[in-house]
């Protein structure tokens, strides 16, 4: 396969040699995705990768004008392919799980889970109980419902950002901004109580 400079890639993908350039790009992207996804996809790896590469190539051709030349063209293209593949894999992995499934049940019982944690020191355990109640109250009273839902889905439920965004009818950027505001609010609320996040973390260290 011929090696190309960035401008050669751009010219070939836009010009009469487009078919050959697309085939060469397909080989580069396929090799990369097979390598990075082999531990994640157990069946039909090649078929799935072929689909991801096809989608990635369409997106790359559509976005050629946005390539700023700050990296090698193939690095930029591989980045697009990784995004396409991971977006789809996350969608498949989380497709049957709703946000409600990830929300902790509100039983009205304020007995925190830390009580079940083995801690030899009753004083430390008492501090942990107070801090847990404080954080739970903070989540309920100082954050908006959307902030609280996103925070719990990601931090407790482990759902990826874009999957939470999809379920909340927003996008990845807007959700990141919402979470950023939530984290700032929590930092502010802690400060009002004379605490830093570091002090809370320390209280839970074994």
């Amino acid at each position, binding site marked *: 396969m011929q090696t190309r400079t960035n401008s050669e890639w751009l010219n070939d993908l836009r010009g009469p040699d487009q078919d050959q350039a697309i085939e060469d790009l397909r080989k580069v992207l396929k*090799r*990369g*995705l097979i*390598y*990075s*996804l082999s531990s994640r996809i157990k069946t039909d790896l090649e078929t799935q990768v072929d689909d991801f590469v096809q989608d990635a190539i369409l997106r790359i051709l559509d976005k050629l004008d946005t390539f700023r030349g*700050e*990296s*090698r063209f193939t*690095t*930029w293209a*591989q*980045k697009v392919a*990784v*995004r396409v593949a*991971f977006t789809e894999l*996350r969608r498949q992995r989380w497709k049957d799980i709703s946000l409600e499934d990830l929300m*902790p*049940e*509100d*039983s009205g019982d304020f007995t*925190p*889970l*830390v009580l079940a*944690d083995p801690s030899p020191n009753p004083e430390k355990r008492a501090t*942990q109980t107070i*801090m*847990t109640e404080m*954080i*739970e109250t903070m*989540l*309920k009273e100082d954050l908006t419902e959307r902030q609280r839902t996103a*925070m719990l889905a*990601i*931090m*407790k439920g482990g759902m*990826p*950002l*874009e999957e939470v965004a999809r379920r909340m009818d927003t996008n*990845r*950027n807007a959700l*990141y*901004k919402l979470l*950023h505001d939530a*984290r*700032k609010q*929590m*930092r502010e609320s*802690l400060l009002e109580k004379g605490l*830093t*996040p*570091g002090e*809370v*973390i320390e209280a*839970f260290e074994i």
Partner: protein
Amino acid sequence: MKLSSEDIQKMMEAVKMTREHELDCGHCYDEIDQFVEMELSGKNAAEVMPLVQQHLDLCGACREEYQALLDTLKAFID
């Protein structure tokens, strides 16, 4: 609500890392190819592009994609 010690520690780590100005996922994505190449060339990308590093520390989805891109380029460096 039932939060475990682990949930609280995770949440507090994220609050601790919070800065007034942060990159969102889109801006991180725009910069990540440059960031990865810088790392591969032996430069301290985190020092040159601290906002990208900070976003990667906070965003699991972007970190996963960054790691996959880095591993792939390392494997096929030419």
